[in-house]
């Protein structure tokens, strides 16, 4: 799972004091969840790598900014959300957001976005492209809420702390985001497309 363990206060202090071992443990705990979050949200492997790197450097170099008012994992996701949502807002209409471009990326051998394994058949690959493309159609905040809930596995209150939203708002926006995702999936679904074209 993607749960980021909350480090013990001493471990955090050691990392803050420049203890290389403590910093390495911290980094290895957060790097995978942060990368997954960035990749799921940005739907662009190259941009996700850069964003994850920025986020990890920012976290490791500004540990003194963590005040302990929230969980460490929530703070990490807040930093990651701010970075990725900033990138998404700056990104206008990008070719990666279209299904065709995603398919092209998949055919180009960069299958990280699709989380494809070698055993995946064409239909499974197409399904993954479909979902990635549908998610890319949502508003940045809607994407973030879905990813934090479904991929990062955060509770409602943790999502609220990461995105600075009340828990009740998170629940209603998550429901709305899932609804939007389904509608986007429906609109992009090839069988639905064929029905519309007929």
């Amino acid at each position, binding site marked *: 799972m993607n749960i980021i363990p909350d480090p013990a206060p001493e471990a955090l202090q050691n990392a803050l004091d*420049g203890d290389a071992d403590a910093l390495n443990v911290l980094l290895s705990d957060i790097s995978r969840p942060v990368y997954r979050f960035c990749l799921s949200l940005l739907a662009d492997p190259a941009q996700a790598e850069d964003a994850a*790197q920025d986020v990890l450097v920012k976290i490791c170099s500004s540990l003194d900014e963590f005040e302990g008012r929230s969980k460490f994992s929530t703070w990490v996701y807040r930093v990651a959300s701010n970075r990725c949502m900033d990138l998404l807002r700056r990104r206008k209409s990008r070719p990666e957001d279209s299904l065709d471009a995603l398919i092209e990326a998949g055919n180009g051998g960069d299958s990280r976005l699709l989380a494809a394994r070698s055993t995946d058949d064409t239909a499974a690959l197409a399904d993954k492209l479909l*979902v*990635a493309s549908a998610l890319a159609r949502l508003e940045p905040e809607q994407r973030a809420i879905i990813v934090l809930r479904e991929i990062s596995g955060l509770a409602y209150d943790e999502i609220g702390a990461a995105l600075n939203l009340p828990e009740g708002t998170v629940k209603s926006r998550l*429901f709305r985001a*899932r609804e939007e995702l*389904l509608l986007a999936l429906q609109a992009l679904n090839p069988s639905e497309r064929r029905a519309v074209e007929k």
Partner: protein
Amino acid sequence: MNCGKNEHTRLTLQFLSGAIQPEDTDGARSHLSDCPDCKNLFELDMKAENWFADMRETEAPAWLEARVRAQLRPAGFSVRNILRILAPAGAVTALTLGVWLWLASGPDAMHHPVDELMFNHEDSITASAVADDEQELVSFLRMDAEEDML
């Protein structure tokens, strides 16, 4: 059940998210099996769930951590650590500079308004003493001259 597009989306979502009322569960289940549109939505949602599951297993590139470590400054040369070392040295330097300036400004810098007042007061006492002496001398000379004239 003949439902509108938004209505069956909502129903399917409620069913999938567990937000549906318990008394509506059976109805929703039978509706999902009967309604081709809702069945289609259910299948699409399953695709999304599969994608989420796959993304939860995605590995970060092996080089990511190494690249982050390389980008982080060595602890001994971080700005924080440099400031920690320089802070006491800076305080000592500032103190030394202050003392040096105080000493370099000479005895005039020691003048205090009260001292100045006292100096002025002493001066005025001296001046008045001199004036008294002068007057005494003048009156003595005058008396001496009068005696000569007599």
